[in-house]
């Protein structure tokens, strides 16, 4: 029971309290780039969730089973990038085969998941935070993906409405999106005291 409680708290913490987009500024590029329409945002969120879960768990395993025992920490970044690139390639092949329209609409943003900082960032944080059991690492990676999906979907919802509002000429597009994101972070700061 205790163990389940810890995992649940870890999940809630990474989804709302320590949301990667709002508190760590990770994954901002796709967050601004793909959040124009809610269906695309959701698809992107799901793709990122899959890759981040796979990459987070795998890099944790590689880190603890191979790199640390062999004292090869120096090759950490190179290894992480290889794992992430492989996972993205998998998603790309899967989408092209089974969901061609979604694949078309992603365009360049799909291979760019490789360079999504949220994913590499999470892999690095798993080490910085010193997570020492695999279940926690897996739950945190999955939760990070859900948190990203949540953030990008909220943003897409707001931006669909923004299209109809009267924004000053010079603030159209990216600037107003950034300002909106700022206000959203402010809202998410309200969760900060929830879990110690």
């Amino acid at each position: 029971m205790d163990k389940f409680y810890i995992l649940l708290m870890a999940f809630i913490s990474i989804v709302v309290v320590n949301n990667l987009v709002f508190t760590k500024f990770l994954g901002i590029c796709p967050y601004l780039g793909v959040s124009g329409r809610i269906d695309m945002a959701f698809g992107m969120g799901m793709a990122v969730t899959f890759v981040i879960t796979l990459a987070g768990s795998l890099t944790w395993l590689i880190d603890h089973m191979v790199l640390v025992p062999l004292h090869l920490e120096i090759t950490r970044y190179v290894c992480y990038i290889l794992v992430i690139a492989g996972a993205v390639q998998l998603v790309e092949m899967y989408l092209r085969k089974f969901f061609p329209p979604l694949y078309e609409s992603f365009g360049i943003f799909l291979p760019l998941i490789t360079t999504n900082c949220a994913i590499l960032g999470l892999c690095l944080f798993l080490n910085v935070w010193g997570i020492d059991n695999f279940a926690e690492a897996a739950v945190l990676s999955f939760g990070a993906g859900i948190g990203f999906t949540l953030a990008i979907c909220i943003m897409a919802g707001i931006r669909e409405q923004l299209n109809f509002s009267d924004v000053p000429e010079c603030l159209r597009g990216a600037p107003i999106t950034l300002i909106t994101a700022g206000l959203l972070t402010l809202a998410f700061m309200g969760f900060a005291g929830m879990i110690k």
Partner: protein
Amino acid sequence: MAANTMTAKGALVGGLWTEVPVLRLILGMCPTLAVTAAVKPALTMGLSVLFVLICSNIVVSLMRDLLKPHLRILMFTLTIATFVTIADLFLRAFTPQMSEVLGPYVPLIIVNCIIIARAESCASKNGIFVSAVDAISMGIGFTIVLCILASIRELLATGTIFDIPIMWKSFVPWAAMRLPVGAFITLGLMLGFVNLLTAKKS
């Protein structure tokens, strides 16, 4: 960037004004937002990016004829990861404090879109000299934008720049500028300001 070849002069002007990475192309947002709470980390970050950008652009430019199309992103990221590891170890050895402040954002240079974008759109198509000039001007443009953003935030959040008090005595620090909110909104307004400037000129 319609033509495949660029001139050194074009690359210089591009990085410093017409295509300033953060403001014009909306690339490299994560470090821009994360490390600009104060000027010092912003400057360190800018210089690290400059170093990695120059090295990776030169290497990519040297091996551009060997690249296979479907493997190029992987090759780019591996090249960049190598140089970032060097920069990270360097920072950890010589300025451990700064390395702690920047934390995971130094390794995150690997996935900085600016570097990959430059490797893709410039270094993989141009000779070594043009690539190097392009890297230098892009890197300096990035550093300048980072420093401007950081100065605004640090000034409003603590009333100091480089830890030297500047504002008058009765100035009330505006703590929100240190937080993510300040980063997003300041950058949003900066982008709006640049849009305003360029709209008037054209």
